[in-house]
């Protein structure tokens, strides 16, 4: 009888202990303390994870093998999963979206976020850094806190931080902790080589292409978009010729499977999953538009004349806008300024 009593007590103790551990794990594991974890849902027909059954804006689409693209949370987020853990390229616009991104990441892998890469400093790509790294105030995030490295070109750190004594535009826990300044930066993670390839003076002065060499997937950041003209950030060193050089670099890296389709897959900064043919159309468009603006500048046209000359009319229906954060006029101005800069 004593023996049974002893076993019973041990069992109760074990259950209590397990329950406590699970609670702690749950609190560490994500979401606000006390709030239930959001659970992603999976559509097997579309092979898509949705962060929310009611709001299907934030979702993950399969790209290849263990590489996914999360859309709807700002800039596209590339996710690579494996035995080593989860790697994310860019972290979206942060805020309320981060909770939804975390729900999808939990569905894609039970492992923690072990690596964060940034393709540029731009807020729609880095505002979720702190939370996904697991270093946000109040917990949340499945990263290892500040121990989770954020890799990016050194200019990204310069843009997100500030010299001592000045106020930085982003929290310190969001800053890149692993920076590079040469042409490449190599990482080996989840059984494959991953290269960050610097593209100087493109959208900004700190853009990187992220090349998953075994998966044959490239996260292009904002150098390649399928939604708008490139958002050239003049104030941080962006130029139209730099973007075109980046697109040509991207074309050099891509190998098509057959008949100009498939093979290397490209994840744009915004927009749909693409391949070399899609990058090619964008490169051609941008080169043609650049040449037209350059020609108009040579002929002595003013910025206003160029903006009203309809030099982008054949592409405006696809990439242009007359309202919103990035209009065609703003793009032409950015191109003009970067081409006339001495």
């Amino acid at each position, binding site marked *: 009888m004593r023996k049974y009593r002893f076993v019973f007590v041990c069992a109760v103790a074990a259950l209590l202990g397990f329950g406590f551990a699970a609670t702690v794990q749950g609190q560490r594991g994500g979401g606000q303390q006390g709030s239930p974890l959001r659970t992603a849902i999976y559509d097997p*027909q*579309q092979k*898509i994870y949705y962060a929310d059954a009611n709001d299907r804006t934030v*979702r993950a*689409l399969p790209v290849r093998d263990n590489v996914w*693209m999360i*859309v709807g949370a700002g800039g596209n987020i590339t996710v690579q999963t494996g035995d080593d853990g989860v790697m994310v390229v860019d972290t979206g616009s942060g805020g309320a979206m981060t909770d939804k991104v975390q729900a999808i990441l939990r569905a894609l892998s039970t492992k923690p976020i072990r690596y964060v890469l940034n393709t540029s400093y731009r807020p729609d790509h880095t505002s979720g850094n702190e939370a996904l790294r697991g270093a946000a105030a109040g917990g949340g995030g499945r990263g290892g806190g500040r121990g989770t490295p954020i890799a990016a070109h050194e200019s990204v750190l310069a843009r997100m931080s500030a010299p001592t004594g000045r106020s930085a535009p982003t929290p310190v826990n969001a800053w890149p902790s692993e920076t590079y300044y040469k042409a490449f930066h190599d990482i080996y993670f989840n059984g494959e080589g991953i290269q960050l390839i610097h593209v100087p003076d493109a959208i900004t002065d700190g853009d990187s292409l992220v090349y998953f060499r075994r998966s044959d997937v490239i996260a292009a950041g904002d150098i390649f978009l399928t939604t708008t003209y490139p958002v050239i950030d003049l104030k941080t060193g962006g130029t139209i010729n730099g973007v*075109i*050089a980046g697109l*040509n670099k991207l*074309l*050099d890296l891509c190998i*098509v499977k*057959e*008949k*100009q*389709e498939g093979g290397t*897959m490209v994840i744009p900064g915004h*927009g*749909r*999953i*693409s*391949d*070399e*043919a*899609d990058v*090619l*159309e964008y*490169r*051609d468009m941008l*080169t*043609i538009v650049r*040449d*037209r603006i350059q*020609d108009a500048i040579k002929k002595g046209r003013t910025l206003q004349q160029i903006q009203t000359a*309809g*030099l982008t*009319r*054949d*592409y*405006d*229906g*696809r990439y242009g806008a007359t309202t919103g954060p990035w209009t065609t006029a703003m793009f032409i101005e950015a191109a003009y300024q970067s081409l006339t800069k001495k």
Partner: protein
Amino acid sequence: MFLFIEVSFLQAKQAVFSLTSCQIWGRTGMQSFKRKVLALFSFLAVMGLFSTPAFAQMDLVGEWANLFHEDQPERLGGPDVGDYAGLPINDAARMAADAWNADILSVPEHQCKPHPADYSPRGPAMVQIWKEVDPLSRQLVALRTHISWQAPERWIWMDGRPHPDEFAAHTWQGFSTGEWLGQVLKVTTTHLKRGWIRRNGLPRSDKAELTEYFSRHGEFLTWTVIINDPVYLTEPMIRSSDFRWAPGQQVGNYPCLIVTELDHPQGWVPHWLPGENPNLELFSKTHDVIQEAARGGAATMLPEARKKVAAAQKWPPPTQPAAGGRGGGGGGAGGPGAAAGGRGGGGRGGAGAPPAAPGGRGQ
């Protein structure tokens, strides 16, 4: 199984006979009646299992050879630069085509592009159509097509699956689903890459969607494509191509190898700057078509536009070929070279046929 069918058939025949003979009364008669009704239903059920529905859809499966009696010069030789006539294009499409330079086709990444789904039936298009069925249920899952030039293959899903997410990849052939409207197969296609509606630079955007109709008339197949493009068209563009049943047709392999023959700097994108394309009036002058019509647009599809073009033309009507000749036409394959003799000028073996006037359309 077949023995069972035969037995059921005999029992059913007997049951029908018995029922019509009214031999159903009395206790024994009632039992016999039940057996016979059971047999009748068994027969009907089994026959239903093995029968084909009386309203079966048209069978499109097989080999189809394309016919070029419509739009022959455009489809085989190729269109002239600057010929946008009869297409419901907008200013954006016109500008893109004005900038188009045929040298773009020698850029390595452009060399192996296949015709997209909407254009592939127009080109050299020997077509194979076959079924994909579920191996267990034998239900139709998809209809497949293979076309000779550049070997594009399509899946036309017939199993009711939804179209992919808007952020999924686009392909040259797009994502197609089909449904039968009586004897006509209706196909809806999305997720296309940017393509072309004419091979002289007139673009079709990746926002376009297609509605296609496959209708078979005995040994002939009509493949109608309706392009809805919010970027480059002002209204839906409808185009049909005809095919003839060609049993025994062999469609060969079509590999494509990129060859770089000339050195160009990285990022070379040949194109014409606005106002600098010297070839834009070539079509108009060669064929004596008023430039207003050559520039295209929805209005140029209408009969009134044709009358206007004809009224403005100065050249004499085409000369009829002499017997035995292949026409006072057919000589040119289009392109800038057609200017000398005109498309169709000169003839191809039209011995005795006087040469057509420069610019003569020798169809």
